[in-house]
């Protein structure tokens, strides 16, 4: 996938763009639906996400993370902008990443793929209560307060479940030197 994105980035390759669209638009649509968009809007936002990928492709470099990471971030930001109609304060990941890491972390040597694999594995092992809050935040786009209301839990409980979940994922990344 990074390869397709590179071809779009380097040459404005229209065929590569079509392949990227086929690969990502259905998942972006699914994401937008989970974020509360209706079917027509979700489809429109999937198209817009991929168009943004086309326009911003020159900014992408595979040293800055996987193609999926990059496209997911664009979808996430578009969702904030269009579904919530709020200002997107977070830049694309490469804007935060372009300075060399000043605090080399132990997992820096791991390959991107290995790290992603570790995260997937750990996510599937999370206890249901932790997995639930993580999903509500990342996929349904709910804030801590909204999650607390949805699950009828104290805010502090939501936050501590999030912390516990992240701690496990962080540990999983760290012991894999």
């Amino acid at each position, binding site marked *: 996938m990074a390869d397709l994105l590179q071809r779009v980035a380097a040459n404005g390759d229209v065929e590569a763009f079509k392949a990227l669209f086929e690969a990502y638009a259905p*998942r972006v649509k699914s994401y937008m639906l989970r974020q509360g968009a209706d079917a027509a809007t979700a489809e429109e936002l999937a198209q817009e996400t991929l168009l943004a990928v*086309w326009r911003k492709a*020159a900014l992408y470099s595979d040293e800055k993370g996987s193609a999926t*990471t990059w496209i997911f971030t664009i979808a996430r930001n578009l969702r904030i902008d269009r579904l919530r109609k709020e200002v997107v304060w977070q*830049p694309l990941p490469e804007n935060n990443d372009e300075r060399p890491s000043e605090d080399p972390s132990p997992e820096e040597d791991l390959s991107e793929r290995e790290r992603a694999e570790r995260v997937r594995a750990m996510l599937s092992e999370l206890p249901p209560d932790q997995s639930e809050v993580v999903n509500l935040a990342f996929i349904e786009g709910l804030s801590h307060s909204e999650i607390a209301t949805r699950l009828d839990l104290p805010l502090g409980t939501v936050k501590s479940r999030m912390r516990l979940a992240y701690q496990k994922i962080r540990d999983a990344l760290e012991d894999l030197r």
Partner: protein
Amino acid sequence: MTMTITHHPDVSTLMCCSAGSQPEACAAVIASHLAVCPQCRAEVRRMQKIGVALFEKLEPESVAVPPPVVKLRAAEADDVETSKPCVLSAGEIPQFLVSCVGPCLDGMTWEPVARGIWTHAIALSPGACGDLRLLKVAPGGSFPEHGHVGWELTLVLRGSYSDEFGTFLAGDVADLDEDARHHPVACPNAGCICLMASEHKPPLFGGADRQK
């Protein structure tokens, strides 16, 4: 210029930020902190993998429309200039706030709130919940001890303040829950200027905001 940052946002706040599910006011403070905090940037980078892993697991939904027709990229490419990283140094305003408040903390307009306390409200998107503002406290100035009706995030931009939780210097973030009580006192020499986001507008500022 280096900052020694000792107070960081809570991990759960950073996660919400990575997920893009945080309220706008909260996002503004966290983004300003990330601009000066490599440690939290690294955390958010790790957290991003959570979002991506969950995204990959979503069941694809068939898309009826064909791929949009795209032309030679050069013609439509975004201006690369729009994506400069934001830079913050002590005493300066985060780049993306400049359009709201101007480029310099010294040149801004401030509304007096109480003796030795001024504020400058920052407009959020229509419908966004929460409150975002700059806060300036004169050297040695203090707030009466108070609790909070919701979350509150404060990033020190210049000077420092101290309370029950410690001393907060430029770049530090205080991430307070609704049950937190404190009695902040600004640095006796330099005073303090902060960027503050809160779930509800603190009652103290009710009368001060002209534009709200």
